């Protein structure tokens, strides 16, 4: 295809995108620095009374990075990564199950009025009950400590995924459906070539929400009843008064949570090439 002088080259696009990323990274760093500065000032420098009980920023950071941490957790200790692995595994299992069940259910409810009218009322009645309210029942229903935690995480994730998928189907431009009917698409073709690809962006939006909600529930569940994991670290840090550990847990949570969202965004970008306009922007 002949290209004008005005069209962007592949290299130009890539470097523009890189510059954009670096710029936002720069702002993130600046904001982060600001927040940490605030912490440093209030605790170390000004020693405000309200903030007196909080550990000093320097203490937390040095603990996090130290090879011989006082409270046993740092980036150099094995337990740290074990806790991360535990939390990550639980989230992946719960999220995976929720996606496997939620996407088909959402698609079915969005496509078929009959399915929706039978299933959605039940769904909507159960949904307002926060996943954490299931803690006692989960403990009674499932043996051990792992399954209840995964179950709670699954619930939160499942609601978000199913709802978003269903809404995604319903928000497909009606003209597209009509056009497909004009062109002679039967129900199976309609589903496979129109509804499924058309819902994909909404599904991924739902998955991002879903993974966030999964972390949310997971941490709460781990704090209430768990033996490993980031939520457990945070809770123990509090109950054993090893306060720097609380913050190490929180920071790690932020990083790992962000990483999982970014991973989903990456998959979405790979699967929805068609959203790129000719300038490489997201349509």
């Amino acid at each position, binding site marked *: 295809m002949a290209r004008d002088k005005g069209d962007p080259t592949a290299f130009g696009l890539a470097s523009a995108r890189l510059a954009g990323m670096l710029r936002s990274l720069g702002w993130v760093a600046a904001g982060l620095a600001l927040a940490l500065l605030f912490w440093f000032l209030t605790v170390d420098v000004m020693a405000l009374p309200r903030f007196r*009980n909080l550990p000093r920023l320097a203490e937390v950071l040095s603990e996090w990075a130290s090879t011989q941490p006082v409270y046993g957790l740092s980036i150099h200790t094995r337990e740290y990564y074990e806790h991360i692995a535990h939390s990550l595994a639980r989230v992946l299992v719960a999220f995976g199950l929720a996606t496997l069940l939620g996407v088909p259910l959402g698609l079915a409810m969005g496509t078929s009025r009959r399915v929706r*009218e*039978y299933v959605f009322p039940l769904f909507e009645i159960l949904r307002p009950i926060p996943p954490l309210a299931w803690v006692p029942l989960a403990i009674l229903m499932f043996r051990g400590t792992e399954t209840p935690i995964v179950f709670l995480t699954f619930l939160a994730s499942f609601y978000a995924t199913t709802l978003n998928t269903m809404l995604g189907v319903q928000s497909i431009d009606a003209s597209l459906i009509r056009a497909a009917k004009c062109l002679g698409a039967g129900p199976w073709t309609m589903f496979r070539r129109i509804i499924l690809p058309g819902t994909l962006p909404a599904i991924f939006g739902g998955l991002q929400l879903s993974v966030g909600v999964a972390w949310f529930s997971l941490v709460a569940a781990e704090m209430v009843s768990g033996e490993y994991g980031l939520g457990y670290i945070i809770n123990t840090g509090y109950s054993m008064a090893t306060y720097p550990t609380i913050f190490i847990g929180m920071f790690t949570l932020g990083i790992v949570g962000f990483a999982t969202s970014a991973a989903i965004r990456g998959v979405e970008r790979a699967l929805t090439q068609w959203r790129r306009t000719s300038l490489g922007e997201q349509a």
Partner: protein
Amino acid sequence: MSGALSAMGPRRARPARRAGPSQAGRRAATSIAVFLLLGELIARAPALFGVEVPVLGVLPAPSGVVAEALRELSDPAYWQSWYLSFLRVAGGFLAALALGVPLGLLLATRRSFRNVVFPVFEVLRPIPPIAWVPAAIIFWPTQELSIIFVIFLGAFYTITFSTYHGARQVDPALVQSARSMGSGQWRVLWRVVLPAAMPGIVTGAAIGMGITWEVVVAAELISGGSGGSGGGLGHFMWDAYLANNHERIVVAMISIGLAGYLSSTLLRRAGRLLAPWQPLK
């Protein structure tokens, strides 16, 4: 349905389906009835069939739950729990509104402000509010305040973001025409941007409300469970668990769900009052 259509003669009309709201209502009633019936059968399985259903067999029978619910309705302690939880939710939520809406508006309208503050937000966001509970308890003088703080956090993010997105979507033409008619900056914010962003704010608030109830239960479980100030629906549920009263656990769950649903609905009603110009969907 597909295939060459031209010379097949007139298409026969299919028998009319009585579609419409009544059919939807009937289907909903059917599935709920089946659900309850199954629940009853599973709970009574040992007595009826001599077999214990794994996992689900632990759940109480719907009939038992109804009986327990009726009992609770006449117990003042039950309503006391509602009151306490609602107080906490209201406190935290209103604080989140009071801070979140202005913050969202500022983020949307002042570029320099956004560049500085937004990244902090994004970095702190993946940390679930629950994770803040221990830090909050250390920080705040009373346990009550720490619970309200965590509730506040839960709603704060959502409200700020919805306000931000709602305000960003305001048609710049509206702002410009207000400016050209002589409105100052604050006036524009208050009388143009805020009302225009209202639908987004209300939606965000409704979602934030759901998160709030989630958080209140968790916060009550965590802090109340360790012998704290107690009270509230979360605590009520935990007590039921400790007393091994399965029916009461389910009543508590339903109450919490109901409370969350009621608050969201109230919020949406209030939103419609505040933004009457929205076309009815």
